[in-house]
């Protein structure tokens, strides 16, 4: 039983990692490439979830609801960038933290006003709510959809950043915005696009999560911290790093959580193991982060040349 549990948990870990990657990819672009501290990434994730839920409840069209979230959150991100965040690029991190933190409060309050303080409903079509038999355990089909969507996004982001001219310009802008403009590239538009892209990915992640998680104000905060841990482990600004780190965090967290109790039970008394297990489990990724930083202060895959 331990063996099949391990395999299932690996699958779960990958799925969790992919979900984290969707969030981390957008945030690492904004953090690393624009050198902008965006605390409200989680708020965009929440927005994605609410928008998806509302659209699905109104139209009953599942896939369309999820897909529509992307342009909507891209637009929200772009508008915010255009009118507010643009003015903060040349300021220190503190001002950026404050401004985006303020927006978390504003977004949460808006969600609370529009949709009420209680969680909001989001279901999913029957076809997706089936399970698929893996080693005698029903594995939700929808989770496989998430894995597929996340992998697609990962490949897309990698190609975009590392293989296209657009990606080169983005990376160039990370180190010297003014010079990029001085060579004839509309850097403002570029920034808006990156921010929009990040927002879109966050929105998509939120939309994908909406059917599994509770859609409520503040749902973005816990996820934000987890995402940041992923980014720090992966190396800030590196999409590739974010991908591997997301998988590592997903796997370590999921497998650690379910396997640790067995490990503890094997050498501790059961009551002690029962107490130590959950405590360590809740800290396991922070410990992982501390470990990584102790050996590689710039993360596992730092952007080279900085």
């Amino acid at each position, binding site marked *: 039983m331990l063996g099949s549990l391990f395999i299932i948990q690996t699958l779960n870990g990958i799925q969790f990692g992919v979900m984290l990657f969707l969030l981390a990819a957008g945030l690492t672009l904004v*953090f*690393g490439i624009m*050198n902008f*501290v965006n605390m409200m990434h989680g708020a965009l994730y929440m927005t994605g979830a609410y928008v998806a839920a509302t659209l699905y409840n109104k139209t009953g069209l599942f896939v369309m609801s999820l897909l529509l979230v992307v342009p909507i959150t891209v637009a929200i991100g772009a508008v915010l960038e255009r009118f*507010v965040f643009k*003015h*903060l690029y040349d*300021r220190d*991190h*503190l*001002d*950026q*933290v*404050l*401004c*985006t*933190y*303020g*927006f*978390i*409060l*504003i977004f*949460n*309050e*808006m969600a*609370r*006003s529009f949709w009420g303080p209680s969680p909001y409903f989001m279901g999913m079509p029957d076809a997706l709510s089936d399970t698929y038999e893996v080693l005698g355990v029903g594995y939700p089909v929808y989770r496989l959809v998430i894995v597929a969507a996340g992998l697609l996004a990962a490949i897309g982001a990698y190609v975009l950043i590392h293989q296209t001219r657009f990606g080169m310009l983005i990376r160039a802008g990370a180190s010297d915005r003014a010079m990029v403009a001085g060579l004839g590239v509309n850097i403002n538009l570029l920034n808006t696009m990156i921010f929009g892209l990040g927002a879109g990915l966050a929105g998509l992640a939120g939309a994908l999560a909406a059917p599994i998680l509770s859609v409520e104000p503040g749902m973005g*905060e816990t996820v934000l*911290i987890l995402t*940041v*841990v992923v*980014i*720090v482990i992966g190396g*800030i600004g590196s999409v590739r790093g974010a991908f591997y780190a997301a998988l590592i965090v997903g796997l370590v967290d999921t497998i650690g959580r379910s396997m640790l109790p067995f490990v503890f039970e094997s050498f501790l008394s059961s009551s002690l193991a029962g107490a130590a297990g*959950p*405590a360590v489990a*809740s*800290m396991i990724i*922070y410990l992982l*982060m*501390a470990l990584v*930083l*102790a050996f590689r*202060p*710039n*993360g596992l895959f730092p952007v080279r040349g900085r």
Partner: protein
Amino acid sequence: MSAPSLNRPALPAFAVWLVVLAAAALVLLPIAARYAETPYYVVLVTRLLIFAVAATALNLVLGFGGMVSFGHSLFMGIGAYSVALCSYFGIGNGWAHLAFAIVVSAFAAMATGAVALRTRGVAFIMITLAFAQMFYFLVISLKEFGGDDGLPISMGSRFGFVDLKNPTTLYYTTFGVLALLIYGSYRLYHARFGLVLRGCMINEDRMRALGFPTTTYKLVAYVLSGCVAGISGLLLANLTMFASPSYASWTVSGDLMIMVVLGGTGTVMGPAFGAFAFLLIEDLLKRFTDHWIGGVGVMIVLIGLLARRGLWGSLPGRPR
């Protein structure tokens, strides 16, 4: 050639007056409150003073050293639980509380700082946040000590005949701590250590090239700041006679940061004024609308966009 002056940054006269007036008002408040029979104001202002202490502590790293810590609530939490745990085990001696708070804060600051200070910029901000969250969830899972319900405190801190249980005593103690802290940070700002710290904020690479082991200095500042924030937690615990994991929640860290910026990052007096201003504005907004959190959000966005020097730093003459 005239000899270079001793470089004493003159505090503009009216700024001196402002400080003196504010101090006088604070000293007189409990007396006035007694005559007006409004003891509530003593409690209210004690809380403001406690947050002023915490904000000033944060300013030591954030304003003087450029370390944007998003996890200072960690130390407030530790300070509060020091009192609660001592009380839980029947210890009412304030010195024991204080020693416990300082030692544990220092230890936590050392451990988390050693990891966090390996990074800079965004990563530093986020790691400090993560550590505070870690503590938060740790406390919540400790059933023995009340978990998320928190731990009521039966024995407040008693320093000989000074018993913080008495609201007026607590008030004046907090006021004294704040005054001492502000004077201390003024001295620190100009002392060798402060100079090195400010140098690190402006250009850490250059400081390293000058031969300063910068991380060590930053770590010492971080530990110092953590200890002071721990003391503010101790005071808060005495005010509420209660310790709760929520003292260490990330919104508290955010609030502290806002107070510092609102008052004036890196100024000596600013953070205290910022704490007062922020909490009073919050209180005011709450009276007008149920959606006051959104209002606070708007205010914070505006502070981030506009308040480059903060309230205190924007006074004419730019006092420190």
